[in-house]
């Protein structure tokens, strides 16, 4: 049996009548030590799939098997790097990482925990910013804190939800190399979600396209046989690389041309601003929605292909 496995997983949101079926019939098998990349369009359900893998969402049908257990509760053995960082804004960089370290390594002495935390803050080059709050950091720095927090938990499987999305090309390349290095050194099992086929092929043993939603499903997995460690400069001229890249994009494009539509959805941006207290409506009888946050009062209309 595989290390991490999805069997016939389907997921949708909303009540009957105005439901969106996001994922349908997802089957996925990941072996221990494997690096799998899932590539898909924006809004196709990648983060939903990741939440299911992490145990944060229960699939409406189908099963999640992890390390021999059936649909287990989330825990630090499945380390998720959230797409929107999810740093706690009242804690400093160091404290955000330390919160995870203190929880996961409660058996270590305080001094050992401190040096462990320092090591992972240093790994993402944030030692100079260790006492800053998330609101004082750039988007890329926040993402690195989030990566450091998850790596510091030393999870059995690393779940990366577009972890490098907000980074500039240079930092992105550095962190890609860093992920590849950690993975080789620790024989880490990794699931990476990305919208960049190049990144997927550079890092992964296997690339799986996710078709556009609704009812998104995984395509055939495409093995990447290029040997590790891979050199990003050499690889671009490589024949296999071009073949795989072609295969991935062709599959996604083919699935895309089925039909088109537009949708409007609320954009939930990374949560770094404090709550907007002035916006709350006075509570009356009956159920109340939660107060709006300033950064949620935004919508985007996008054309998506279905």
């Amino acid at each position, binding site marked *: 049996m595989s290390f991490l496995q999805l069997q016939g997983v389907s997921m949708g949101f909303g009540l009957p009548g105005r439901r969106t079926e996001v994922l349908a019939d997802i089957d996925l098998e990941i072996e221990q030590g494997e690096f799998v990349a899932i590539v898909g369009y924006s809004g196709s359900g990648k983060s939903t799939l990741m939440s299911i893998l992490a145990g*944060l969402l229960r699939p409406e049908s189908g099963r999640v098997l992890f390390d021999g257990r059936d649909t287990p509760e989330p*825990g630090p053995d499945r380390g998720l790097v959230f797409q929107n960082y999810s740093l706690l804004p*009242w804690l400093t960089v160091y404290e955000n990482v330390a919160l995870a370290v203190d929880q996961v390594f409660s058996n270590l002495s305080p001094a050992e925990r401190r040096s462990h935390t320092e090591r992972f803050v240093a790994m993402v080059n944030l030692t100079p910013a260790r006492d800053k709050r998330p*609101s004082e950091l750039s988007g890329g720095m926040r993402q690195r804190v989030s990566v450091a927090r998850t790596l510091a938990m030393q999870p059995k499987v690393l779940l990366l939800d577009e972890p490098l999305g907000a980074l500039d090309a240079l930092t992105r390349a550095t962190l890609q190399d860093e992920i590849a290095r950690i993975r080789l050194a620790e024989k880490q099992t990794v699931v990476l979600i990305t919208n960049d086929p190049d990144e997927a092929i550079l890092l992964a043993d296997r690339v799986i396209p996710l078709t556009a939603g609704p009812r998104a499903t995984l395509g055939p997995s495409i093995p990447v046989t290029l040997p590790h460690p891979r050199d990003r400069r050499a690889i671009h001229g490589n024949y296999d690389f071009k073949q795989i890249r072609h295969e991935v994009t062709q599959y996604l494009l083919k699935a895309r041309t089925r039909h088109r539509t537009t949708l409007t959805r609320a954009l939930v941006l990374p949560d770094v601003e*404090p709550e907007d207290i002035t916006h709350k409506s006075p509570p009356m009888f009956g*159920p109340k929605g939660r107060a709006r946050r300033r950064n949620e009062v935004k919508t985007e209309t996008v054309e998506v292909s279905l």
Partner: protein
Amino acid sequence: MKPSWQRLDFLLLPLLGGAFILLLWHLSSHSWSGDLPDPAKTWHESKPYVLEPWAKRGELDQGILRFTMLSLWLVAKGYAIALIIGTPIGFFLGLSPTFNKAFDPIIQILRPVSPLAWLPLGMVLFAKLKGVNVTELAALFTIALCSMWPTVLNTAVGVRAIPTDYLNVARVLKLSRWKTLTKVMIPATLPYMFTGFRLSLGIAWLVIVAAEMLTGRPGVGGFLWQQYNALIYEQIILCILTIGGVGFVLDRLMSVIERRFKTA
């Protein structure tokens, strides 16, 4: 470069506004409102209370700061009770939809009830207890009950507004219930809680005057009511100005604290 008087307008304009009100007051007392003492008389009669603010000549004849301290002490106790009871209730309302459905209608009905209505109930409630100061308990009951609601409701809103992401972090880390509460939920709710605390303090200070009037306890409000009954009107105005000034200072202090937590 602005002319120099314009750079001082933050000082000059309020002074002008104050002078205008003094003039209106003076004219009123000399025209249509014969019983209203004019500003000069008010100051003259208030002098003993202001210039000797800590004097104690009798139970209801004390310096104005002494009265203020008595009132503040009572408010502090009532306010503390309001926060200690109100914050957990707010958390329960925010956390449990069932709890919210059960108690929200009652809260909405109790919330607008005036302190003047609660106080008699407080007197009745504690009347049969032995060895306690019934009027003090009734006053505390009234202050706590009236000032609790902003804390309750803001805390509940704050708890509901905790981003799911933060709770997901707690779930991935497998934080215990207690740690989730102290490390994630309370810090995330603090800005809302402090807005509630500030509004509650304002109400507590409003209620104190009514409570003291009805119970005749020594304090700014009790003094005001006694002087009114004794037909000494000058010190009523002194009391009003004191109450306003103290309320303003309290609100400023709470705003400073509140702002500290908002940026956190």
